[in-house]
């Protein structure tokens, strides 16, 4: 991969800006760092704290371990000490830092000694550094102390140097993210003097015990390591600073490292080394594990899981994929992820055997085919176990005794069956029959029974068939060869078949995973609401992981809802709920099998969407998920969270859209009304003004008066329309029905529109036998008024306008038709929409008439429709289900 030009990478810039933002809200962490116990970290910390105190800073002591060193204890004087809390666990009582008390007290600064300390069982977090993280999250600044041996990435090296392995480690991230690291440095001689003076360890025995650790050579080495570490840190901070301020420095931006992860301890070391390198280079790290047909034993699985966890802890992006050829799979991923450097371990001495058969060893091949990618080949180290690729893997002795018995019986029965026919076929052919049986058996059983069956059949063949029969003696040399070959072939066949089956099993497992994920994704895509999403999630989780999942969702305001969705069976207790809240707040898992609050029955996982937190899910797993399952579980949860988030956002978008729509409607209405109002008002004012200003001849005056009258009528009509539409909108239409004579109705309407109807030919068609119908006269009058008014507005004078009514099959039918322009066919479905107007020269009016008509008709539980007439014009048909009355005298 080519180096990019010296332009700041926008992504990196964004990250560091975001980081800056984040740090503003978070508390600041200052680490007092030392190469060994006794350099004076706690002492310096207390000194600094006193200086702060004198400046008026609110300092408290969270936890100080003075190790009975009098000088240190003396410094505690004058500082407020938060009392430790007692943790009761299985009968014993231990003292730990009281995290809640400190959060409650919320000082500006708290002193917490021994960053790498492991908390007693029953504490909220397993490690003290997690406690400190929580303090920082709550905006409290922290001073702490730690030695170099406690850093994950340096742990091995220190063990190598001093011969002492320290078990309590902290992730390097913590060190990297600290805002300030102060190195407490003293020369080795001074340190050794202190030891001798008993200033470090009071008791002589302890001094003796520590002698090994405190050798001059060791101390010097440790000192150098510590100095280098701090220098590196400064270097990195400088780079970050330069990046932020857009100073184009000589930085190695755009570097991506890839480290291969395997199931061995040396792999762990490799990961640490890779982390170190990435730290120094300012590169990001990808950890790749390639599954292949090799079956891992329990120990290897455990180690692999640990390694993956370690990689994750270091902040590496973990990729797990499968492939039969390690080299091509690795390079594939490398190219996809734009990897610049690959880190692998030396595979150690290649056995003669494998160098004959494998084309090249892994390292050589990778070197050959890596192209532009740099390869770092690291010596695994003295404690590394060689992880050699074998042609034959360790036998899998996991079959049950039943399989062995069946295999044995199969061989035995074959032998017995063959006994009678050996005279015909000859003993050599029997071997084929036995081989065949082995082959069949290998289709069903694993390697263990197969090996046994091979051995038994070889021996049986020898005993029962090879001459001399019924002895184990082999006289002919060709028989001996045959015997050996038989056994070898049986074994190889069995193994190969078993291998094929293993591969098949693995593929099947992989297919299962893919299917499970596909199924989940499909179900989630089809879920139309939150309830459904959770339903399908629960089902799929149960199917694949075999656990019941309980979901707690956020309530829309960033807090976790108290009740779970579909709350049953058994709600969470208060304490469990508070764990869930913690998980929600910190977006980290907690509960059983985790580092935090591990005494709970449930394990809680955060549901993190791409931008927001969706909630928390709780499960009761029967045992800890291994690394691979955990990763898959993660994928599952990501899918679910994203779907929940997406759904939530879609709801919000819909709401916003709705508001937007009603806003738009409001604007349209507003503009329309103001326009429509202004015109008649202008007319009235203008005409009145003119009339007042001068005296005019009668004809002119009459005209002006008419203008005023017309304009007023127009205003009146407008107001009526608005009132009607608002009645419809607010649902305040109550039907006042009464018996109506259709003639009456039509007359009223046409009477009102007498003037408008003058130029047109009006037809009213009501059959003689038309019964009385129950209608709301006022509403129907308005409906027909609007229809006829429109017809008058748009038809050419002289054409006919017709009103027709009849009763048919329990429906009242009213039709209004004209010979006007009709409606453009593609607008027919929208004719009754609010504000609908056709393009026509005579504008004016709000376009509400038809929608009001529709509303009033529908208030009668009727329907209204429109169609274009064959010879031109429009026809409106109103159908109302109604009672009728024929009353004869």
């Amino acid at each position, binding site marked *: 991969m080519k180096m990019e030009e010296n332009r700041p990478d926008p992504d990196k810039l964004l990250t560091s800006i975001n980081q800056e933002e984040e740090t503003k809200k978070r508390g600041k962490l200052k680490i007092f760092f030392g190469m060994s116990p006794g350099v004076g970290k706690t002492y310096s910390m207390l000194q600094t704290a006193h200086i702060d105190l004198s400046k008026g800073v609110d300092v408290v002591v969270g936890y100080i371990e003075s190790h009975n060193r009098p000088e240190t204890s003396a410094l505690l004087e004058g500082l407020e000490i938060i009392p430790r809390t007692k943790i009761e666990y299985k009968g014993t009582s231990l003292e730990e830092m009281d995290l809640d008390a400190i959060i409650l007290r919320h000082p500006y600064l708290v002193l917490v000694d021994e960053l790498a300390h492991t908390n007693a069982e029953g504490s909220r977090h397993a490690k003290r550094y997690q406690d400190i993280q929580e303090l920082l999250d709550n905006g409290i600044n922290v001073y702490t102390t730690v030695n170099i041996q406690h850093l994950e990435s340096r742990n091995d090296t220190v063990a190598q140097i001093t011969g002492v392995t320290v078990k309590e480690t902290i992730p390097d991230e913590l060190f990297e993210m600290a805002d300030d690291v102060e190195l407490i440095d003293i020369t080795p001689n001074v340190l050794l003097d202190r030891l001798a003076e008993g200033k470090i360890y009071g008791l002589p025995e302890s001094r003796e015990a520590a002698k090994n650790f405190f050798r001059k050579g060791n101390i010097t080495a440790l000192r150098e390591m510590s100095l280098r570490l701090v220098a590196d840190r400064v270097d990195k901070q400088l780079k970050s600073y330069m990046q932020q301020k857009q100073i184009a420095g000589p930085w190695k931006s755009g570097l991506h490292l890839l480290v291969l992860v395997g199931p061995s301890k040396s792999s762990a070391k490799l990961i640490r080394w890779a982390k170190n390198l990435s730290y120094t280079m300012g590169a990001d790290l990808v950890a790749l594990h390639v599954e292949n047909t090799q079956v891992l034993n329990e120990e290897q699985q455990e180690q692999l899981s640990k390694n993956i966890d370690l990689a994750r802890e270091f902040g590496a992006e973990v990729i797990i994929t499968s492939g039969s050829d390690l080299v091509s799979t690795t390079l594939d991923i490398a190219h996809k992820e734009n990897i610049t450097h690959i880190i692998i371990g030396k595979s150690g001495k290649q056995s003669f055997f494998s160098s004959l058969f494998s084309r090249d060893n892994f390292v050589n091949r990778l070197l050959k085919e890596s192209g532009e990618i740099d390869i770092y080949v690291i010596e695994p180290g003295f404690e590394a176990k060689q992880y050699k690729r074998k042609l034959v893997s360790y036998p899998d002795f996991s079959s049950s005794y039943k399989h062995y018995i069946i295999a044995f019986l199969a061989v035995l029965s074959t032998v017995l069956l063959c006994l009678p026919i050996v005279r015909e076929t000859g003993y050599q052919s029997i071997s084929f029959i036995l081989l065949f049986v082995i082959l069949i058996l290998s289709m069903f059983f694993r390697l263990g029974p197969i090996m046994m069956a091979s051995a038994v059949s070889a021996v049986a063949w020898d005993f029962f068939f090879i001459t001399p029969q019924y002895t184990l003696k082999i006289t002919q040399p060709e028989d001996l060869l045959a015997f050996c070959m038989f056994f070898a072939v049986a074994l190889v066949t069995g193994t190969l078949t078993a291998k094929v089956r293993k591969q098949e099993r693995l593929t099947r497992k992989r297919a299962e995973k893919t299917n499970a994920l596909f199924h989940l994704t499909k179900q989630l895509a089809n879920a139309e609401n939150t309830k459904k999403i959770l339903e399908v999630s629960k089902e799929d989780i149960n199917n694949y992981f075999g656990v019941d999942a309980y979901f707690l969702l956020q309530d829309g305001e960033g807090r976790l809802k108290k009740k779970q969705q579909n709350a049953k069976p058994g709600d969470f207790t208060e304490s469990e709920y508070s764990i869930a809240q913690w998980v929600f707040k910190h977006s980290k898992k907690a509960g059983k099998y985790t580092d935090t609050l591990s005494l709970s029955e449930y394990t809680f996982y955060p549901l993190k969407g791409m931008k927001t937190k969706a909630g928390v899910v709780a499960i009761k797993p029967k045992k800890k998920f291994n690394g691979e399952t955990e990763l898959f579980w993660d994928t599952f949860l990501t899918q679910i969270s994203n779907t929940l988030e997406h759904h939530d956002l879609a709801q919000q978008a819909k709401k916003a859209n709705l508001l937007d729509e009603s806003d738009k409607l409001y604007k349209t209405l507003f503009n329309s009304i103001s326009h429509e109002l202004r015109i008649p008002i202008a007319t009235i004012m203008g005409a009145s003004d003119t009339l007042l200003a001068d005296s005019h001849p009668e004809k002119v005056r009459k005209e002006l008066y008419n203008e005023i009258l017309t304009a007023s009528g127009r205003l009146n009509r407008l107001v009526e329309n608005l009132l009607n539409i608002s009645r419809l909108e607010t649902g305040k239409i109550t039907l006042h029905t009464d018996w109506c004579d259709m003639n009456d109705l039509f*007359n009223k309407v046409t009477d009102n529109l007498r003037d408008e109807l003058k130029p047109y030919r009006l037809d009213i068609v009501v059959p003689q036998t038309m019964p009385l119908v129950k209608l709301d006269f006022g509403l129907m009058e308005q409906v027909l008024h609007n229809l006829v008014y429109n017809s008058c507005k748009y038809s050419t004078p002289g054409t006919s306008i017709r009103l027709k009514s009849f009763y048919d099959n329990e429906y009242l039918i009213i039709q209004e038709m004209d010979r006007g322009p009709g409606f453009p066919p593609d607008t027919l479905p929208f004719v009754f929409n609010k504000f609908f107007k056709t393009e026509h020269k005579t504008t004016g009016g709000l376009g509400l008439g038809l929608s009001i008509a529709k509303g009033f008709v529908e208030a009668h539980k009727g329907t209204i429709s429109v169609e274009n007439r064959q010879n031109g014009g429009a026809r409106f048909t109103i159908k109302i289900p109604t009672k009728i009355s024929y009353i004869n005298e």
Partner: protein
Amino acid sequence: MNTDTILIVDDETQIRRLLEITLSASGYKTIEASTGKEGLLMVASHQPSLIILDLGLPDIDGIDVLKNLREWFHKPIIILSVRNSEEDIVHALDKGANDYLTKPFRTGELLARIRASLRQGQTANDTPIFQIGDLSVDVANHIAKKKDELLDLTPTEFSLLSLFVKNQGCVLTHQYILKEVWGYGYVEQTQYLRVFVAQLRKKIEDNPTKPTLLVTESGIGYRFGL
């Protein structure tokens, strides 16, 4: 007749002014009140011939004023209201109002109804023969003629016609008509009314499908007269 005094009770200045101008132009004397209380006082002190009463008064509900008045004032009262308040109008008519007008109203209508209401007050005991256009009705003798031709009316039809003729120009609510013609028990049977009106129209109207004499006031009742 031209010295009839009309009391205008309405809280809107513009309406009062408009009415005052219009009525004065037609020769009526007008007095005004802007609240219900004031109106009642003015009725007592000035004894108007007719009251135009707005239903939407600020202090007392128009209906209450009406009820109050009807206990001691028996001259015509015309109520003013807004559109789409048929219920209120019917209620007022039942409580004793003679006629109604909806705002905005046409001057022609206003004057016609005033005339009709004033006449109604006077024709209580007058000539039994009514002449409306080419229709003549002799109430006492049960004779109705159109264009001098005798009309064949059933007893119910004649009662109906008589009622209309006696109250020409004024609106009559459905309930009132039903009560007067059919009796208290029939007050809900509007379908009878419709049918009979239709039949009556066939006999007395020039064009029964476009009636000019017997006009429907939707939601309220009927009005007879030119």
